[in-house]
C-alpha cells in the first residue's frame, strides 16, 4: 500500500510538479462542481454531494494509510462519531452547526490520538485488528446507547446549516456549501503533504527506523497521522448528517470502513486526488450503473476487481505511470 514510494524518492521534481498539477485540478474541479448541478435535478446533485462527503472521509484515511502507512479500519467509526456528535449537538442541544462541526473535528482528533497509541506498538495487520475492534466498539455504542444516540431508530430531522443569513436547505445551495468546505479541507491537506510534516509522514511510511535515525519524532507523527486522518472522518460525518437529514448506526459499520479502505486503494493510495477518484468509484459508479437493473452490483464489483488487477496502485497510480511513459516517449530535454 505504499506503492508510490520509489517514484517519489527517484523523481522529486516530477512529484512536486504532479502535486502542483493536483492543486490546479482541485481548483478546476471545485469550479466545475460549483456549476455542474445546474439543470441536473436534485438526484444528480445529491449524488455529487454524497460523493464530496465521502471524499473527505477518504482523504483522511488516505493521510493515515496512504501517506503515513498506518492501516486503519476505523474511518467509518470516526465518520459516525462526527455525524452523531453534530446531530446530537444541533438537534438536542440547539448548538450552531459550525460550532458542532468544529467540536466533531476536535472530538475525533482527540480520539484519533488515543487510537494512535496502539499504532506505536503494533503495525500492519495487527494494527488493522486493533482499529477493527475500535470500529466495532463505536458501532455498538451508537446502537445500544439509545438514550443518547436514538439506538437503532437513529436521529431524524437534522437541520442543515445557514451561511451568513442564507438558507442552505435546497439541494443546490447545500451542494455548493459542500464544494466550498471540501475545497478548503482538500487545500489544507495539499499544504500538509507538501510541508515538512508531509515528508515526515512519508518517511514514517517508508522506513520508521530510518526516519527516527534522521531525527523525525516518529511517535508524534504517528499520533498526528491518526489524529488528522480521524478528524477528516469526523468532518465528513458532520457534513453527512445534515446532507441525509437522518442518521442511524448502519452507515458507520465495519463494512463501511472496509468500503472506505477500498476507495483509498482503488483511487490511488498516497495521491492527493486519489480519494476523489476512489469515492467517485464507490459512490457515483454504482448509481450510474443502475441502468443495468439487478446486475448493477455485480458489474460494479467486477469493474473494481479488474481495475485493481490492472493497476494495483489505483487509478492515480495508473495515471502517473501513463504520464511518465508519455514523458519518456518525448525527445531528451523536450520536457517542459
Amino acid at each position: 500500500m505504499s506503492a508510490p514510494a520509489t517514484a517519489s524518492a527517484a523523481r522529486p521534481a516530477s512529484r512536486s510538479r504532479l502535486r502542483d498539477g493536483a492543486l490546479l485540478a482541485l481548483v478546476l474541479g471545485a469550479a466545475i462542481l460549483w456549476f455542474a448541478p445546474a439543470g441536473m435535478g436534485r438526484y444528480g446533485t445529491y449524488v455529487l454531494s454524497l460523493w464530496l462527503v465521502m471524499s473527505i472521509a477518504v482523504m483522511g484515511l488516505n493521510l493515515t494509510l496512504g501517506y503515513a502507512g498506518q492501516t486503519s479500519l476505523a474511518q467509518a467509526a470516526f465518520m459516525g462519531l462526527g455525524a452523531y456528535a453534530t446531530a446530537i449537538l444541533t438537534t438536542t442541544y440547539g448548538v450552531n452547526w459550525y460550532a458542532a462541526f468544529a467540536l466533531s473535528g476536535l472530538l475525533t482528533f482527540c480520539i484519533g490520538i488515543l487510537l494512535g497509541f496502539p499504532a506505536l506498538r503494533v503495525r500492519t495487520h495487527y494494527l488493522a485488528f486493533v482499529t477493527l475492534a475500535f470500529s466495532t466498539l463505536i458501532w455498538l455504542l451508537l446502537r445500544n446507547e439509545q438514550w443518547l444516540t436514538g439506538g437503532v431508530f437513529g436521529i431524524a430531522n437534522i437541520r442543515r446549516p445557514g451561511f451568513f443569513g442564507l438558507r442552505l436547505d435546497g439541494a443546490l445551495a447545500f451542494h455548493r456549501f459542500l464544494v466550498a468546505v471540501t475545497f478548503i479541507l482538500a487545500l489544507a491537506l495539499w499544504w500538509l503533504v507538501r510541508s515538512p510534516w508531509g515528508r515526515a509522514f512519508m518517511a514514517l511510511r517508508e522506513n520508521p527506523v530510518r526516519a527516527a535515525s534522521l531525527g523525525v519524532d516518529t511517535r508524534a507523527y504517528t499520533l498526528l497521522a491518526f489524529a488528522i486522518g480521524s478528524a477528516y472522518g469526523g468532518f465528513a460525518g458532520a457534513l453527512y448528517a445534515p446532507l441525509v437529514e437522518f442518521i442511524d448506526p448502519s452507515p458507520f459499520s465495519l463494512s463501511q470502513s472496509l468500503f472506505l479502505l477500498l476507495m483509498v486503494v482503488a483511487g490511488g493510495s498516497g495521491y492527493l486526488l486519489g480519494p476523489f477518484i476512489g469515492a467517485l468509484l464507490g459512490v457515483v459508479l454504482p448509481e450510474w450503473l443502475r441502468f443495468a437493473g439487478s446486475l448493477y452490483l455485480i458489474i460494479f464489483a467486477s469493474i473494481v476487481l479488474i481495475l485493481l488487477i490492472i493497476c494495483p496502485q489505483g487509478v492515480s497510480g495508473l495515471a502517473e505511470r501513463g504520464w511518465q511513459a508519455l514523458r519518456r516517449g518525448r525527445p531528451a530535454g523536450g520536457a517542459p
Partner: protein
Amino acid sequence: MKSPWIMAAALAIGCALPALAQDKVKLVDVIELSGAGASAGTNFKNGADLAAADINAKGGILGKPVEVIHYDTQTNPGATRAAVQRAIDEDAYAILGPVFSGPISASMQISQRAEVAQIVAGEAAGFTQQGNPYIFRTSLSQSAAMPKIAKYLKDTVKAGSVAVVWVNNDFGKGGRDAILPELEKAGIKVAADIATEQGQADFAADAIKVKNANADAIFVYLNEDESARFLRAAKQQGVAKPMIGETTLLGAKVIELAGDAANGVKGHVGLSVDAPLPGLQDFGKRFQQKYGYVSDHNGIKGYMAVHMVKWATEKQKKLDRKGLADTLRGATITVAEEPGILIDTTILKNGDLDRESFLAEVVDGKQVINTVLPKLNP
C-alpha cells in the same frame, strides 16, 4: 489529472437525465434488493410486479398501463435517499417501499416535500407518528399488533411469565419496546429479555438462556431467517414451552427453513396467503406459480401497495399526485370495490392501517389459521 473531474461530470449528467413518461402510470419501487433487507425487499418487489401485470392485463389504471421501476436501496439510508430523490426527479406518480424503518425515516421527508404518496412496508411504530401526511403503510404497525399478542398470551396461552427474544435492529427493538408495556398491563412477568443480532447464525446460547428462564411461554420477535435458526436451536436444546410470535415467526419462509422445528409455533399474523380469504389464497397460488416459492407477508404488501394506488386513482378519476395521497388518507378500501386489496383495509389519517388479522399455528409444516381477529375499530 483533469480527466477524473470530467468523468465525474459526465457520469453525474448521465445519472440525472430524467425519463418522463406521461402515457404511463409510473410507480417507483425504492426497495431493499441487497444488504440485510434483501429477502423482504425481493418479496415486495415480486408482489408489486405481479400486481402491475394483473392490472395491465385488465387495461391498466384509467386506461394507462402501470410501470413499476425498482431501485435498490442497499438497505442503506443514504442510498435510499438518493433513490427516492431520483424517483421524484423522474416524476414518479407514487413511491413504493422501502421495508426497513431506517431507510424509510431517511427518505420520507423528500416525498413529503414533493407531496408524493410513499407507500411503505415497514412495521416499526415510529414513522407514522411524525405527522407526515404522505406516508402510508401496507401492514399493521407494531403498536396495533402487540396488544393483540399480549391478549393472546394472557387469554389463550394463559402465560404468567414470558421470555422475550428479539433481534436488535429497528424492527426487533421496536417490537420489544411495544410488547413490554402490553405484557405489564396484562400482568404477565417478563422472565428473560434476550437481544440477538441481525444475521446471527448460532442461537444455541440464546436457546439455553430461554430454557433456563423457565417461562410459561416464549415470545420470539426476529426476522425470518433468524427465526428459523432460533427455532432449530431451541429444538436442539429441548425447549418445550410454547413459542409465540408474529408474522415473521409463522411465515412460509420460516417453515421452509426450520423444517420440523417450526411445528407447534403459534401467534398473530397480519397477512398470510393461508388466511381464510379467497383473495389472499388466490394471490398466494398465482405468486407461487410465477416465482416458484410461497410469498411471505412482504409479497402481499407489494401487491396491495400497487392496488392502493389503483383504487385511489380510479376514485379521484385523474392522475393527480397530491390528490392520490388525499384520497388514500382516511379511506376504507373493500375487496368488493377493489379485489386487488385482498383484505378490507381502513387507512387512518396518519397512514396506519386497521383491518382484520389472524391467529395461526404451524401444524405438520403448514400454517393453519385458527381465529380471525376483528378490526380494532370495526
